[in-house]
């Protein structure tokens, strides 16, 4: 955001990123268009994908000029945002509570640890059976893993706070709520944002699983549909779009974290 395109281009640090993307596309091109190896010949090459993606009249009906493309993006983005917001509110809340109250931890942590490893896909049947609408099912699937990632990181964040800050806060006359607000929350914020980064990534991963099975629109649904229709170019467009959206949303989470934790970015030298 703050970095201009010119600075980005002239910064040697960004050349590595460009080089690796270029290398990846080149490899893709060589495998699919030049060598045409046995199992790769059905894959569309990068030129075909980009041409279709940018074409006003795409052969398979999907490009930046078609409304269906934006409908799918919109569905997916809204689902991820709703799930991520729920995961943030509930996950941070539960994580803080677990870290804050010894008693609550003893009661709830074993349950959390049992439910946490269940993969989102395994929740699909239950979600479909129990939740009244498909849409809620998809949201639930997208939410669940992001939620646990947030809970765990928030809890670890609270536990990582040096005891000396609690003692200092008490000495200075804090009541429990002051300690919560001025020590527990800011002290765990770095770990919370690590959790939210993970949660955002996991949300996109689970979203596609949820959309493939029980959705009606969205990028996951698009990929699944075009798989049955053997429209491979569209699949690759869908995959790349997912990648870009995931990258962008993670960057936004990082930016929000930086804004909220000015003290982290204003350190004096290294390890001062």
């Amino acid at each position, binding site marked *: 955001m703050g970095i201009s395109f010119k600075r980005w281009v002239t910064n040697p640090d960004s050349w590595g990123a460009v080089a690796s993307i270029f290398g990846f596309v080149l490899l893709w091109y060589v495998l699919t268009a030049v060598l045409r190896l046995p199992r790769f010949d059905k894959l569309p090459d990068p030129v075909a994908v980009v041409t279709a993606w940018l074409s006003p009249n795409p052969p398979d009906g999907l490009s930046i000029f078609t409304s269906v493309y934006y409908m799918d993006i919109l569905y997916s983005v809204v689902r991820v945002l709703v799930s991520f917001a729920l995961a943030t509110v509930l996950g941070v809340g539960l994580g803080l509570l677990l870290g804050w109250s010894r008693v609550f931890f003893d009661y709830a942590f074993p349950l959390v640890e049992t439910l946490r490893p269940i993969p989102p896909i395994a929740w699909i049947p239950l979600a479909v059976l129990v939740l009244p609408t498909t849409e809620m099912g998809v949201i639930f699937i997208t939410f669940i893993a992001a939620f646990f990632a947030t809970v765990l990181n928030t809890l670890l964040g609270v536990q990582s706070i*040096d005891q*000396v*800050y609690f*003692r*200092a*806060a*008490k*000495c*200075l*006359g*804090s*009541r429990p709520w*002051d300690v919560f607000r*001025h*020590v527990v929350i*800011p*002290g765990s*914020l770095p770990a919370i944002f690590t959790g939210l980064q993970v949660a955002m990534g996991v949300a996109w991963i689970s979203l596609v699983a949820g959309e493939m099975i029980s959705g009606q629109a969205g990028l996951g649904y698009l990929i699944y549909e075009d798989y049955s229709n053997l429209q491979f170019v569209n699949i690759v467009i869908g995959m790349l779009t997912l990648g870009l959206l995931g990258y962008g949303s993670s960057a936004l989470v990082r930016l929000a974290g930086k804004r909220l*934790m*000015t*003290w982290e970015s*204003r*350190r*004096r030298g290294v390890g*001062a």
Partner: protein
Amino acid sequence: MSVRGLGPDAGPKAGPDAKAGGDISIREVTKIYDPDGIHVVAVERCSLEIAAGEFLVVVGPSGCGKTSLLNVLAGFEDLTDGEILLDGKPIAAPGRPVEPGSDRIVVFQNGALFPWKTVLENIVYGPMVQRRRELGRARQAARNLLAQVGLEGIEGSYPAELSSGVQRRVEILRALINEPRVMLLDEPFRGLDAVAKSVMHQFLLDLFERTRLTMFFITHDLDEAIFLGDRVVVMTTRPCCPKLVLQVNLPRPRDHRALGDTRFLELKRAALEAVHEEALKAFRAGERELA
């Protein structure tokens, strides 16, 4: 609601302050840690009277139980036996958990400024949570304090942006603004280089001249102990109790010239002998434990 003796902020409420005082009476205090049934007697039958406005320095071999005594005083740990009175009121007795409070504020060994708060936010933290005065006035008082010690301009900095010497001074101001009756300092200048340390000594002595707060200062640096203190208490090796009490009769206000005074050197010799004796005991005890 101003810091006693500090500047023009004293206001109409100055005069005989109800909160003044700060004499501590430590009576036969014993502190035993009992982790997994292994008795660690950290402090045993330790008695000490500290007069209001006295600068008391505690020295002793490391691991002898100094911090344990301070933790009991601060209210972080309960004591096993004995009692502690602050201005005649019990603040610690066995089986009666006491809460830490802003009447006795600790300055910690490794620093405890909140890294997520700016200097100004750190200093006004106490007045803010105690709701003792309106935040605007607390901020002004904090700025005055910083200016009085020549630290203006760092209000908006985060602790990590400051040198450790400045961090220590800010932490002391954060304690001071609450008008504690006692300051409990646990090796606060450990790890600072010699120059920073001497700056800190002058800083603390200046504050002491102006406020005359009761100071309970732990160190294992004998020069520091004698230079700062009215009295130096040499503790025995674990369990901790007073072995030797030295009255430091160097005149105040003091400056670095005191370090060359013959009385200083005599006191140091006496303290050194006592500390050495205890250090040897600690060393032999360590060997016995290993054998």
